[in-house]
Each structure stands twice: as C-alpha cells, then as structure tokens.
C-alpha cells in the first residue's frame, strides 16, 4: 500500500480515536448524556471498510457508530451537535449518540435495538439493486447480534434472493458482559455464516491492511456475483461497553494483551519499520501535524456544538392532541 494511502488510513483511525476520547471527556462533563458506546480499539474496521466505499454507498451501524458516521462523511460538527442534543445535529438532536442519521451521506443509523438494522440493510441493498443504482450497502453489527433471530432471518433471505449486502461483524468477543464462548455454541462465526450457503471470511480486525484487502475481495465478489458476503473482523473494545459499565467481567490482563495490538500503533509500526532516521523524523512531524489538524477539527466541532441551539418544543409535531 502506498504511504499516502496508509497515512490517510492512519488519519481516519486517529480521527475516530480522538473523537471518541473527547466524547468520554464530554460525558463526564455532562455535555453528552444518555448512553454512550465508544469504538476505541476497533477503529481499523470502520476505517478500512469505509475507505473502499464511495459517497453514494449505503452504511448502517449500531449504537457504537460515531466513527462510521464520521468516515462516511458526516461532519464532526453534526455529530457533536447531535450528542449535545442540538438542532444542528445530524438528527436534530432528537437521536443522540445512538441515532446518528444522515441521508445525504447515505448513513442510515445508528440503531439501539441489537440486530434490528440487519434486515433493514438487506432492504436497502435490495432497493439499490432493483432501482439499478450503483450503490453498495454495508452493514456493521457486533458478534452478539448474531444470536438474534433477525440475523438468522436476514442471512437466509439475502443468500436466497442474491441481495448484494456486505455483512461486517465486529467480533469484539463481548456482548456487554457476556463473552462470545458463553453466548454462542459455535464460536467460529464464519462457519455459521457459511451454513447459509454464503461466502464468508475471517479477518484480523486489528490489522488494517488485512481489513482493506479482505474487504476489497468481498466487495468485488459482491459486485460481480450480486450476492451477499459475510466478514468477521476479530477485534476488541478497549473501553467498557458503555459509560455505565463497571467492566467486571473481564481480566485487566486480557485488556492489556489486546491493547498491545492497538490498530493505530500497529499501522504506525508497519509504516515506519523500514524508515531511516530522516524519514522517521519526517513521519513524526507528519503525525504531529495530523494530530494538530484533528484536534482543530474536533475542537471547532465542539465549539460549534456548544454554540448550537436546542430545538423548541413548538417545532415538533405532536399527535393525538
């Protein structure tokens, strides 16, 4: 991969990381309320996958979707405003962290019911195919969602009807406090997917090169065959499930072990491993600039969100009066 491409990936991972860290801070300041689920540790997946998509492609996420929205083109301003509950938010402040929507960016949520976006993604993919639109559809969900009936029903329908949907399972090994092996009899998730007669592949979700490569294969397959494809990305969330989670169900050592595979550090290492001293210096400077750029982007966004206004009650439509 070219260095400039790598750098863009690095930048986007870092944008997510920084945004998420700021969210955590703003949550303790009570600027952001409700539920807040952070993507820290999993950035390589959204970054790698979305790097291969274009503006007109459809993306659906879960309640852990800030990063996906950002990379799909929703501005940090619109995202922070949303989390601040302001009308300038991408859902007018009515949705909050779990319900980021942006039709212009073909970002369809943000869904707080586990697995309920999966069949909806199938519908979007079917519509694009039927309407002969050249858009692809990608759906992100956690490994826990695979236990839901909605997942099963959608796997069957998409495989049966050749619906060109890319299933991206972000397997972070936990659904809230329930470990994968304590909630699924079959922990080899790809086997499960293949039982629907669907193509499926497992990916090291901490390695952005592998994410990009295998996603590309999947997207090409979908395009040529007009069929669905399932990708499992093995990853880990470095933070608790949400800001309410006391994180009692996993060992500190396990978290530490995974942190050593931090996808951002991994990418940096890969990018720098054959650099000489001068290149290294330049890279460090570039990273500093990058961080600065991101920090400006984010602080401007937060300032914007601060200044934005709340929607008036009189602006919303009430039924059944």
């Amino acid at each position, binding site marked *: 991969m070219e260095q400039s491409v790598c750098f863009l990936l690095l930048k986007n991972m870092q944008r997510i990381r920084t945004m998420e860290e700021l969210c955590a801070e703003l949550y303790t300041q009570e600027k952001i309320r409700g539920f807040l689920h952070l993507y820290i540790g999993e950035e390589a997946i959204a970054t790698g996958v979305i790097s291969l998509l274009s503006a007109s492609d*459809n993306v659906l996420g879960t309640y852990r979707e800030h990063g996906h929205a950002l990379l799909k083109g929703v501005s940090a301003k619109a995202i922070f405003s949303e989390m601040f509950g302001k009308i300038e*938010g*991408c*859902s*007018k*402040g*009515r*949705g909050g962290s779990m*319900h980021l*929507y*942006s*039709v212009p960016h073909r970002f*369809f*949520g943000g*869904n*707080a*019911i586990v697995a*309920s976006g*999966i*069949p*909806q*993604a*199938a*519908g*979007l*993919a*079917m*519509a*694009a195919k*039927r*309407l002969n*639109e050249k858009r692809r559809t990608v759906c992100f969900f956690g490994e826990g969602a695979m236990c839901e*009936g*909605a997942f099963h*029903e*959608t796997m*069957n*329908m998409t495989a*049966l*009807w050749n619906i060109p949907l890319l299933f991206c399972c972000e397997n972070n090994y936990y659904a809230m406090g329930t470990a994968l092996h304590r909630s699924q009899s079959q922990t080899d998730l790809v086997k499960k997917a293949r039982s629907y007669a669907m193509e499926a592949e497992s990916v090291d979700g901490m390695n952005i090169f592998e994410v990009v490569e295998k996603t590309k294969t999947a997207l090409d397959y979908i395009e040529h065959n007009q069929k669905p494809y399932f990708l499992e990305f093995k990853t880990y969330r470095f933070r608790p499930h949400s800001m309410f989670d006391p994180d009692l169900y996993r060992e500190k050592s396990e978290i530490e072990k995974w942190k050593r595979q931090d996808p951002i550090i991994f990418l940096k290492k890969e990018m720098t491993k054959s650099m000489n001293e001068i290149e290294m210096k330049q890279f460090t400077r570039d990273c500093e600039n990058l961080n600065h750029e991101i920090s400006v982007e984010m602080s401007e966004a937060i300032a914007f969100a601060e200044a934005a206004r709340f929607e008036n009650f009189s602006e*919303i439509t009430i*039924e*059944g009066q």
Partner: protein
Amino acid sequence: MKQTYREALREGLKDVLIHYQNSFLIGEDVGAYGGTYAISKDFLKEFGSERIIDAPLSEVGFMGLGIGAAMGGMKPIVEIMTVNFALLALDQIINTAAFIKFMSGDQITLPLVIRMTSGGGRQLAAQHSNSFEGWFAHIPGLIILTPSTIEDARYMLIHAMKENTPVIIIEHALLFNTTGEYSDERADYSLYKARVIKTGSDLTLITYGGMLPKCMKACEEMSKIGKEIELIDLRCLRPLDTETIYASLKKTHRVLIVDEGWKSGSISAEISARIMENCFYDLDTPVQRLCRKEVPVPYAPQLEEAIIPQYSNIVQKLKEMLP
C-alpha cells in the same frame, strides 16, 4: 358496481402495483399459493417474482427488509398473513418504522404499507383470532386503517400509498365475502375522516372493521321500533377523527361504541375518555362500550359467539341506553 370485499381489495392492490413500478408485495405465500385469502392470486405470474415476493417464515426479517427498501426509495407493501403473527415483527414496526422519521430529525420518511387480516369469528382459536387494530393505534408514528366497506377495500390502499408515514391496513377476515355497491372514487375521498354510514338523532353508534355489518343490522332493527341511530364507521383508528364523533353526539347525546378488541385499554376506551374530556356536558347518559370479553378466543363455537359482540348484544345494549 357490485363487488365482493375480496375482489375490491384485489383490484386496489393490482392498481397500485401497476401504478408504482417501485412497489412490490412481500409476505408469506403471497405468490405461488396466491395469498392466504386469494387476494393476490395469479399476481406472481402477472408481475413476476421481483414484484410479488414469497417470503420465508421470517416476520422480523421481511418486515425489516420492507423498512429498508422503503428507506432505499421503493414502495413496499408488506403483508403479514394475520395480525397474530405481527407480534413477531412489532420491534421493527414500532422501534423503527413508527419512530424513524422523528428520531432521524425528519430526514427519513417511510412510504411503507403493511397489510394484515384480523379478527375472530371463524373458530380459529386463541392464537389466530386476535383483534389488535385498536391496540396498535396506541403507537405514534403509525396510521392505522380498518376498511370495512367495499369502497374502502377498493380505495384505501391506493391512498395509503401516497402517505410518507407507515400505514397499517387491517382487514377483518369475516368481511372478505361481503358484497356491496360502490361508485367511482369520490373527489373528497379521505383516509382520515370517519364516515357517517347512517344518520339518526337518537344515539350515536361508533364502530369499525368487522363489527360494521352487525351494527348496520342492529340499526335497521332499531329503525323498525322507531329509533334512529346514527352509525359511524371510524375507518381510521389513528389518527382518530374525533370531530365527526363530537358533532354526532352533540346531536344525539348518547354514545355506544362497539369494538371487537378486548375492553381494557381498547380504542373504545380512548374514545370514551376523549368524550369525557371534551363533551362531558353534552351527554345525557354515560358512554357505553360493547367489546370482546376479556379472555383468549376459544375454539368452541358457543363460547366464541358469547365472547365476541353479536348483533343481538348490540340491539339489547341500544335498547337499554335509549330512554
């Protein structure tokens, strides 16, 4: 023109499938089987398998798929075979279909029509005889329609397709073989207005769906003894056309609501409560309700009959309420 309710539904459905190239019908056995109630018989041949989609037994799945297709610019008609199985899909219907417009800051509108049959009276027992139409009317973000006349069977779907809000059309299974006259579409056809089926000044009788024929018969009976009942077919359970109700009761000062749903927390409770709040001083006697008895519907015919409001119960109740 004289037609059965079934034929009228079928023609309405055909019209919209022809008119909207982006529309499709999806549901269990809508295709090869011809539709459980033969509404879409031969449509698979006529429209092809991309427009008439036989769904697997996956109510959550194909409801979600319909929602997604609507987000993606199509006009899906999702058929849930009967209201009883809709319970499986309620998360999709409520947490997404009903909420997404508001929740997305008015960005996403869902041109989605959901149709299903409902009701008891055919000895299908508890799990196949639910009447949830009034219960669904609790949910903001949905439009709930209950066509009970041939005219509405013919035209409601056509108008529902023009909405940008999810519409649920609930057809009572006992109406399929009813016949009636209907003319060309009225210029002022509206989905939302209740219809005064018969005028009268002695009492306002409010009903919807499968109870309409029984109420019509009861009104005839009452006419014979010189009592003129004003009969209102609600047609749309959400939003509720209280204007028509209030106007009528201001004339009659007495109200009976006949509802096939269970009584507690029914749509008839809502109507009674709204009358309480808005027309308390117009009433000569308290508003009464005649509803399904609060028990699951039994298979045995004598029990089923006793549990669902019948013509004779309506007449009796009307007589009790009149001076």
